[in-house]
């Protein structure tokens, strides 16, 4: 299979797979006997699973159709190949085991099983351990264990299926990447002369940020209920067991989220004149070595022969600028729900849960991108602006980003650009940044106007409450704006639709004050500042409109 071709058979097969169940669903036809019977509150149910099958087939059909846009090569891999691949000279071998998913999944399964074992299973009003939601409702094991159990099982299964050996070698101007799984091999060949940019990093989070939203809501609820049960001065009997299990489940879920977000996810992106190749892998951590330490060496081994000049020449060391704004915003957003709930001040659930998610996202971004420990540095090699060069951005002990610019020939000038030196510019905003900016502005608008509209005139608490909500909301808006429109020195790599921003400042150039940097960026790029302000203003007005809709609706 040639990686440059589209394959119409995927479209045909996908449409066939999706349309048939869709027609059956539309016609209201079930598959006889495809289900089971059960009893719920003494009512017998015959539950047919046709709907699940139809939906699964529709999704499968869409996934098959999506292969039309993807170039894949799949063939069975022998056991011998699996064991020996990548061990020849000139080959680079990485055993990829999603260990963080395995560990997180295992922990979640364990806490799920423990919940059901200790707290019981089922719907009954005779449950003498604890009942959830309503009298006669499910056992408290459901909130404590069901989602962890299912999620953990899926994670473990997915992680086992994703174990692979990645073999990279370069020969005769062709970079070949082979991914060997126990039953299949995907081989991708990339002409090295077409490569424009290669990037390896262990700092990308991508869709894994969704784990924060997925777990954040229930973790907070479990912690609040669990600590309330444990801290109740009149607690007795199974209250301790239920409270303890809630807290344990919440803690395990937090540990799992940390593992999923921070543990061993690495990516290699290669952009050619025509395609973008992205490989995700999970190198096993080695004791005594930073988890990220393998990234530059791998890339250098891969591309060192193709672009030797990128790794020669003078190495110019730059600073990785320390930046605490996202840390401040993240902690601030996480503090709001905790302090609000603990001391019954400021806002409620409408803000708590989104702020937990936003705060988590911002904090993860800070740790992976902005955090700079003593060893943080940016190293630039090769001849700047005159040919292949590489940039290593090491942000401390754990995270680093490595880019190799192989030259921008073949792409229109406006689609290919690398800064020859650090440039002061606002932060490059990615979708999660926009989500946080919009979300905070919307919720602050909603909260302030909800309070103003509801606050009873003449009530002694009203002036203080309005002042508090306006003050905290204003501070959050300001910090969010400053974090979004965050002028700092960086080197931007821009290729086609993709831009990679590496924070970097001249070593020994002397720190410039934030206010002067802000003023400089405002002067140079007033449009970007205006866009951030407009984005936040629109979201704030939408929140305000929501408050009015609630009040007058």
């Amino acid at each position, binding site marked *: 299979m040639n990686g440059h071709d589209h394959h119409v058979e995927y479209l045909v097969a996908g449409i066939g797979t999706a349309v048939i169940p869709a027609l059956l669903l539309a016609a209201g036809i079930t598959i006889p006997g495809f289900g089971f019977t059960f009893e719920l509150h003494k009512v017998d149910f015959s*539950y047919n699973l046709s709907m699940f099958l139809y939906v699964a087939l529709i999704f499968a059909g*869409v996934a098959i159709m999506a292969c039309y*846009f993807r170039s894949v090569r799949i063939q069975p891999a022998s056991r011998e190949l699996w064991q020996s691949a990548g061990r020849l000279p000139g080959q680079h071998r990485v055993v990829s085991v999603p260990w963080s998913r395995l560990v997180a999944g295992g922990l979640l399964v364990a806490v799920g099983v423990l919940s059901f074992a200790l707290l019981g299973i089922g719907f009954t009003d005779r449950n003498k351990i604890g009942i959830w939601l309503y009298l006669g409702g499910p056992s408290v094991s459901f909130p404590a264990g069901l989602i962890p159990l299912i999620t953990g099982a899926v994670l473990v299964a997915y992680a086992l299926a994703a174990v692979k050996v990645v073999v990279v070698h370069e020969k005769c101007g062709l970079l070949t*990447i082979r991914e060997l799984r126990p039953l299949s091999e995907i081989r*991708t060949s990339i002409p090295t002369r077409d490569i424009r940019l290669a990037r390896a990093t262990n700092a990308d989070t991508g869709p894994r940020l969704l784990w924060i939203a997925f777990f954040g809501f229930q973790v907070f609820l479990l912690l609040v209920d669990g600590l309330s049960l444990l801290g109740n001065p009149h607690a007795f009997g199974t209250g301790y067991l239920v409270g303890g299990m809630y807290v344990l489940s919440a803690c395990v879920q937090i540990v799992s989220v940390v593992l999923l977000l921070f543990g061993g996810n690495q990516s290699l992106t290669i952009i050619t004149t025509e395609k973008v*190749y992205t490989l995700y892998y999970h190198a096993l951590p080695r004791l005594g070595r930073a988890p990220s330490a393998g990234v530059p060496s791998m890339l250098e081994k891969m591309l060192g022969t193709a672009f030797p000049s990128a790794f020669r020449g003078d190495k110019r060391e730059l600073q990785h600028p320390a930046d605490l704004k996202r840390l401040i915003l993240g902690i601030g957003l996480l503090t709001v729900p905790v302090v609000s709930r603990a001391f019954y001040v400021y806002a409620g659930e409408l803000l708590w849960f989104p702020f937990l998610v936003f705060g988590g996202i911002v904090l993860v971004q800070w740790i992976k991108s902005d955090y700079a420990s003593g060893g943080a540095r940016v190293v630039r090699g090769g001849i700047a602006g005159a040919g292949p060069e590489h940039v290593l951005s090491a942000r401390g002990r754990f995270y680093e980003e490595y880019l190799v610019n192989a030259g921008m020939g073949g792409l229109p000038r406006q689609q290919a650009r690398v800064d020859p030196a650090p440039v002061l510019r606002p932060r490059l905003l990615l979708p999660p940044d926009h989500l946080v900016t919009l979300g905070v502005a919307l919720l602050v608008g909603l909260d302030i106007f909800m309070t103003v509209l509801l606050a009873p005139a003449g009530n002694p608490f009203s002036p203080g409450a309005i002042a508090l909500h306006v003050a905290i909301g204003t501070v959050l808006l300001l910090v969010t704006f400053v974090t979004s429109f965050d002028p700092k020195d960086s080197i931007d790599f821009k290729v086609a639709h993709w831009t990679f921003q590496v924070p970097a400042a001249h070593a020994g150039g002397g720190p410039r004050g934030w206010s002067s940097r802000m003023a400089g960026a405002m002067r140079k790029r007033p449009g970007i500042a205006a866009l951030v302000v407009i984005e936040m203003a629109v979201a704030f007005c939408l929140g305000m409109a929501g408050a009015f809709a609630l009040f007058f609706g």
Partner: protein
Amino acid sequence: MRIKNIKDHRKQQVGLAAVILLPVALLGAIFGTASYLYVEIPSFGMDESKMPDISSFQLVDYGELASMAAFYDQRFEGHHIPLNYTVSASFTSTNYTNVSTYGFSDNGALWSGTAIAGYVGKYLAARRESNATMELDALRVIRKLVHGMSMMLAVPNGGLGPGYGAILARMWAAPEHASIPGMPLFNDSIQGARAPYAYYNGSGVYSNWRYSDFTSLDEYGGYYWGLAITYKYVDDPWVRGTLSLMIDQLCSGMLQTNFLGIGGFGGPTGVDQKMRFLNAATWSLLLLKMGALAYPDKYARLYYHFAVERGYAFFANEGGTQEIVANYYAYNFGIDVVFGLLLLEEDPTLRAQYLANFNNGMWSFVRTHRNAHFNVIHLIVEGLGPGGDVYYERDVEDQLARFKLTHYPDVNAPVTPPTPDYRLVDFTVWQNFFERHPLGNFMAPFFFEFELDNGDKEDKGFYDRPLAVDMCKTRLYIWGGNPFTIPGNSTNLLVELPGLSFITPYWLMRGFGLINATGVRSP
């Protein structure tokens, strides 16, 4: 390895958006269909065209209603509060003088709260009419009920006040009450009793007493309502002092458990009085509002925080259309807490919000049900005086007068058969949808409490319009029962219910000046 063509970048973004939107659209379609069905299936119960014309309501004799109230009052105090909380009673003969056994229901808290609300109405009527004898009568029963209700907190927790927990009993009894006929708390062998799983010993000085546990939200609803209306309108020092302790205990305990109800085993019972899914915030608001009135220093700021800063005032909604065909009783205890909050809140901004929630929610579901309990609450919370909403005034009067036909005394007697214009609702299309259509079958568990019967099974099925009260079987509180369902044929003239179905709406109407003590309704 993921491979994207740079040229196809836009197409791939569109494809990605489609892949993301597909499950969203599917879930939206499923939830949209479910939401539609939640309204559509019970829509027959909100059909205004089926409401009777006002001309069909009888012009009642207020004097006769007053004499009926006096009769029910005498029966209630004499035979239905042996331990100062509400029970039914079985008699040895139809002269209803000798009780053979009491029917200790598991809704002692709910129906005692409902009863005390009625007697607060009587207390208010006595004040309004300057009738000192009637005031003393009302206060006597109120004191008894306050005692009975206070013991529902004291027995499980060992005492009254914020120093004790907030477990609420359904009913209670001291060891010396074990011999009361029908008392189930000390006897596991009584048929229908919830022993042994639901009965516990009390705590502290009450450790030899017994109480019924697994207290449901129904119970809390009636209980909170009773506390709220009594605390607001009855100024007797003992009553207010006791209620203050109870309110403080409940507020303190519920805040400590994050508004989770706790059972006699120590764990949560499933009762959760927090706002959930932007709904049902009324419970915590009512509790804290009571606290704010009884102990402003402790709870006024907390109430403000919940109502205003958290925005709970927007989400103080109870009930849904689905309760017309599933768990109709939930309307009854849901409206109790809504009523309690509307009674206590005097700030115009917050009260207007609560009233808007009530009118857009609960009241819109039940306004066609000919339910005297709901209709009286509508008249009171709207602040309507006589003639403010004549239709509902006369509807309530007509229903109260009909008690004379089949519920006087309040025994399990044969009922008036429905007139020919009552038609059974045909659910066949929905039955087929949930049983045979893949989407319907997929959603069926979410509708498992819907009673989609066509009248082909005995006592199962819905009429297309609400039955008048004389057509309904009696129960501890008729207004908590579904007026659309086939009433059934069983009778037992020896079982007398407490008469609250008449007492509470009648005295609330009279207490709030919506009904006269004497005279005849003019057309």
